[in-house]
Structures are given as C-alpha cells and as structure tokens.
C-alpha cells in the first residue's frame, strides 16, 4: 500500500504556510479583491519567510523544495487567497526554465542575486494572438553579433508590471514553428523592454497581470537558455513541473469554499432547522468533499511522480485539469448553499468562483490538458 502520511518536515512546512495564510493573507483578501490592489507588502513578507522561490535549490538561495512540498504550501496559501497565491508562486514558474535549461554559470549569474533579495520574476510565453498554440508565437529574436534583438508583445503575464526579471520565449524564425522558439532571460531594465499596465480582471484581483512589449530590446547571447530552437521543449518541460502546484492552488480554493459552505449550513436556519439537516444540502456537501479529496490525492500523486524523477506529463495534466474543474464546481455549489447571500460581495464565496475560473484557463487551458491527457493515454494503446 502507498503511504499517504506526511513527514514531520512536510507537516511543519504546511503549518508555516497555514499560519502565513491565516495571519498575513486572509485578513486582506477581500479588500485586495475589491480594490484590485497588488499587496506587495504581503509578497515581501512571503519572500522573507522563504515562500516565494520554493523550487530554487538552496545553493542559489531558494528554498529547494520538491513538488509535493510545494503543493502542500500552495494549497494552504490558496485557501486564503488564490490571487495572492498566484503572484507568490509566479517566481517558481518564471525561474523554472533557468533551472531546467540554464548552464551552471547562468544559474549562478541569474538565480543567486535574484534570490538574495525580494524580487518578482515573470514567465513570458503567451501572446495576444495565442496562448495554447505556443508554436505560433510571433515575438522575434534576431541575432546581431553577441546579442539578440527582441521585438514583439507578450500578454496576460503574471506580475509583469512589478517584476524585475523575465524569462521570454521568442522565435528566431517563425517558419520553423516550434523549432524556432528560443528562451531568453531578460532584465526589465533592458532598453526597449516595456511592461504595460495592470489588466482589470474578473478574479485573482490581488495578482497583477499585464503586457510586455519588446521594441528592439538587446539581449546578450549569454542570456539565451539552451540552443536556438530549444525554447518550446523548455517551456513544455517547465509547465510539466509547475502545472501540479496549480492543482494544489485549485484544491485550496475548493477547500475554502467547502469550509465556508459547511459552517454556514450549520448556522443558517430554514423550515425550522439548520439547512445542514436538509438532505439537499447534505448531498451538496458530500459531493463537494468528494471532489476536493480526489483533487488533493491526484495532485499529491502527480507531485509524488515528479519527485520520483519522472516527467509526470500525464499525471500533472490530470491533476491540474481535475482540480481546477472541481474548484469551479465546488465554488459554484458553495454559492448555491449560501443562496442569495452567496451572490453578494459581502460574503466570501462569490470571490472563490471568480478565482477558481482562472485555474481552468491558465498554465494550459483545460482543453489543452485534455488533449495532452488523450495523447498520453492513446500512446499506451498504439
């Protein structure tokens, strides 16, 4: 039988994240959502405690955690606020291409100074004309001597307006489709790198999302990760690593929705008794807890698979896709449990639905996840 118990180390990591989520994040979640404020003081505190660069090895100043450890932390943070969690873990996504594709010299040059102080980084893949079809990206990288010149535009980039470091995917030749894509580490201070303003979003409003324009931005060849044409594979391998924590993030949102719904159902009276005593509500709660339990176990299994050294493409796609669909469904049922109050912004559950929605879209839309799952599945039958 597999062992589902956590080690004392994992328990204490989870305790740390839970305490931070409850004391530092939760009290500000509603206000940051209402005003779409980017609560950078919270992200600074998260950095101080070691919660932002979770996947970076300790030799470069990160926390050096495995996938399961990261998931335990992310679920706790997301229980307090999905949007803040997205901004807190965006560094993991942005730095993963350097971890996977960087030389030892590049890792030391980029990661060590970055992790030595508070800072945000962004993963810049998506473009206005397409996200899931990454092979069609249009941002150009033209080689000129010892540097590349970048031109183009990225959009929906988490933390872009506030980040100091970007991992950027551009093509050296659009004709070559996937085989032209190349990854670069780009400092925000580079001339011709123009981050845009924050987008106004439906959910994840404490997070920041924006465009980055490149207008003749000169990036040294020494900042290229891997060879020309290796960027697409690097992006996909990065997402294999970072998709699983999105499953954990969705699970945290779902758990928060259930916690609110269950507590409310014990207090709210109708027809002379708490609504928790009505079978209609009991069925909702039972379905919600089943979905959450399955989402958590699929996420843990995907993380465990990755921690064993496997790529985990199938497992992480299943976890992300299932958990995010579960989060949306559970948040929906939480609103229904609250009835009219659930639709009001004075109550916490409508935010959870808006936050859950994004988990079905970002880090690979669930349609793409399903096509990945089917591809991996059919491979076994061919």
């Amino acid at each position, binding site marked *: 039988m597999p062992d589902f118990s956590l080690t004392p180390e994992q328990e*204490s990591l989870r305790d*740390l994240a839970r305490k931070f989520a409850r004391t530092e994040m939760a009290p500000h979640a509603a206000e940051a959502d209402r005003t779409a404020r980017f609560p950078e003081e919270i992200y600074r505190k998260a950095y101080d405690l*070691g919660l932002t660069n979770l996947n970076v090895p300790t030799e470069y100043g990160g*926390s050096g955690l495995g996938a399961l450890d990261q998931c335990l932390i992310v679920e706790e943070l997301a229980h307090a606020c999905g949007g803040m969690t997205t901004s807190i873990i965006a560094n993991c996504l942005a730095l993963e291409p350097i971890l996977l594709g960087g030389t030892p010299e590049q890792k030391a040059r980029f990661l060590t100074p970055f992790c030595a102080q508070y800072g945000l980084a962004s993963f810049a893949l998506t473009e206005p004309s397409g996200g899931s079809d990454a092979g069609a990206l249009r941002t150009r990288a033209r080689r000129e001597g010892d540097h590349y010149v970048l031109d183009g535009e990225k959009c929906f980039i988490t933390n872009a307006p506030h980040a100091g470091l970007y991992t950027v995917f551009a093509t050296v030749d659009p004709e070559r489709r996937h085989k032209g894509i190349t990854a670069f580490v780009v400092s925000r201070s580079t001339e011709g790198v123009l981050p845009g303003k924050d987008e106004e979003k439906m959910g994840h409003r404490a997070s920041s999302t924006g465009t980055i324009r490149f207008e003749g931005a000169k990036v040294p060849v020494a900042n290229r990760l891997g060879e020309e044409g290796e960027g697409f594979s690097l992006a996909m391998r990065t997402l294999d690593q970072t998709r699983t924590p999105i499953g954990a993030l969705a699970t945290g949102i779902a758990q928060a929705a259930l916690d609110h719904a269950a507590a409310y159902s014990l207090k709210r009276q109708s027809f002379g008794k708490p609504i928790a005593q009505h079978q209609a509500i009991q069925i909702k709660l039972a379905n919600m807890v089943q979905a959450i339990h399955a989402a958590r176990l699929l996420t843990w299994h995907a993380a465990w698979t990755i921690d064993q050294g496997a790529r985990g493409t199938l497992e992480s796609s299943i976890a992300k896709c299932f958990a995010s669909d579960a989060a949306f469904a559970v948040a929906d049922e939480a609103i229904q449990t609250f009835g009219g109050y659930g639709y009001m912004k004075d109550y916490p559950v409508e935010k959870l639905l808006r936050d859950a929605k994004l988990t079905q879209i970002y880090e690979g839309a669930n349609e793409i996840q399903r096509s990945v799952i089917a591809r991996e599945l059919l491979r076994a039958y061919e």
Partner: protein
Amino acid sequence: MEIVVCIKPVPEPETRLRAAPDGRILDPEGVKYVLTGYDESAVEQALLLKESVPGSKVRAVSFGPSPRAEETLRAAVALGCDSATWIDSGAEPSPDPVDVARALAGTLRSLPHDLVLCGKQAGDDEAGLVAGALGELLGVPDFGYVVDLRWDAARSVFTFHRMTETLQESWEAPGPLVIGLQQAWNDPRTAKLPAILKSRKAPIDKVPVPAPDAHASRSRATTFALPPPRAGAKLIEYKTPEEAAERLVKVLREEAKVFP
C-alpha cells in the same frame, strides 16, 4: 548570558477537545500540540535578549511525552533557540503544574542559567503556577505578568515591567531570576522556511525525568470536562433604527440587567 526558556506543548487553539476514555484528563488522541501564546512571547523575549547581549545562548526546555515535546522544541529551535532539552515524561505526564515545575527544576539544576523564562501561564490549563513554583524550587526570585525585560550591563541587573489589567510596575533585579511573560506584547516572530527545515535535523538533548524529591506530589486529576455550551444569542427584530435601539435597551435593562 545563559538563558533558559521553558515551553509547554499545548493543543492547537482550533482543536476540538474531549475527555480521555477514563474521563480524568484531556484525550491526547489526534490532538496537534504546538508552541503558542504566552510561551511564544517567552521565546521571543529570550531571542530579543540574546540579540542585545553579545555571547548569549538560549536553551529551550520542555517536559512531556513524544512526539509533542520534541515537536514544540523544534519549533523553538526554528525560531532561533541555540539548543533544546527534552525531559521525556514517557507516558502522559501528570497535569499538576507543581509536578511540572519539579521536573523542570530538577533538570535546570544541572544546566547553566542566568535567567529562566516561561509564559506567565500555559495556553491550555491557564494554571499560571509553573513560574512561581520553579522560582521556589530553584531558590531564586520569580516574577509574573512581565513585559519588556532588558539587561542593564552597566549595573548588572535585569529591568522589567509587570503589566496587568489594573497596574503597571517597574522592577530591577540581578540574576538568576525566573520570569513569567505576558502574551503577545512583543509580536513574536515567525520561523522562516530554511530555519524550519534546519530545525528538523537539530540535536535535541533527551533527559529522563529527575527522581522525585521528598515532597513529590500526591495529587491526581480526577475528572476532565469541557465548559457547557453557551446559550444562543438573542436576535432583536426591528423595522426602524429607533425601534432597534428601544428594544435593545429594554433587553439590556430587563433581561441582561446591565443597568437599572
């Protein structure tokens, strides 16, 4: 300066408590024990002193069974304590605070200590007796309800305040002392992730419970029960604010008898 901070593993504040099957004590089954409340303030005070007095060392000491005492000590090490001593009670320890003070005093006699810090009371039973009993057993002065303890190096005395709901006093005294700290006056720090991971590998000195002296306790807890549930809140129905105020005043006067 050798600082000892005594910490008690107490149930996490959100735990649902229940009596053990024999009805005598709290059922420890499934309870998560943590460092919390007054003891967190005591650890914070120890670390503040360590940071202000060069060459100081802080040793955390806890009495209890495995794994709860060891886990609480690791939490203290993650916060910055230099070393930890676990007095292994083996089975469920006596809940008598004076028994706890005896175990601590017997152990502290062989540990260097210029200053012994405790929470002024435990976060669970709130007995508030250990610091006082420990002072008596060690034969040193003890003070409770203390905030803002400092070391005056020029005069070799500790200065501190005693803060209660009704008074504030200022004191000074040379060491060694036993001090019971007030809660949350010093905004206890949170352990950082790398320190938490490091604390998992820190050595914990395990020592046996000291042999009981001539005055060993003969007390025994007989029952443990939770307070009865509180009566429900009274909802006042109204149509206008004036009516709400009128009805509230009536309830406060006639039912709650808050004023005549």
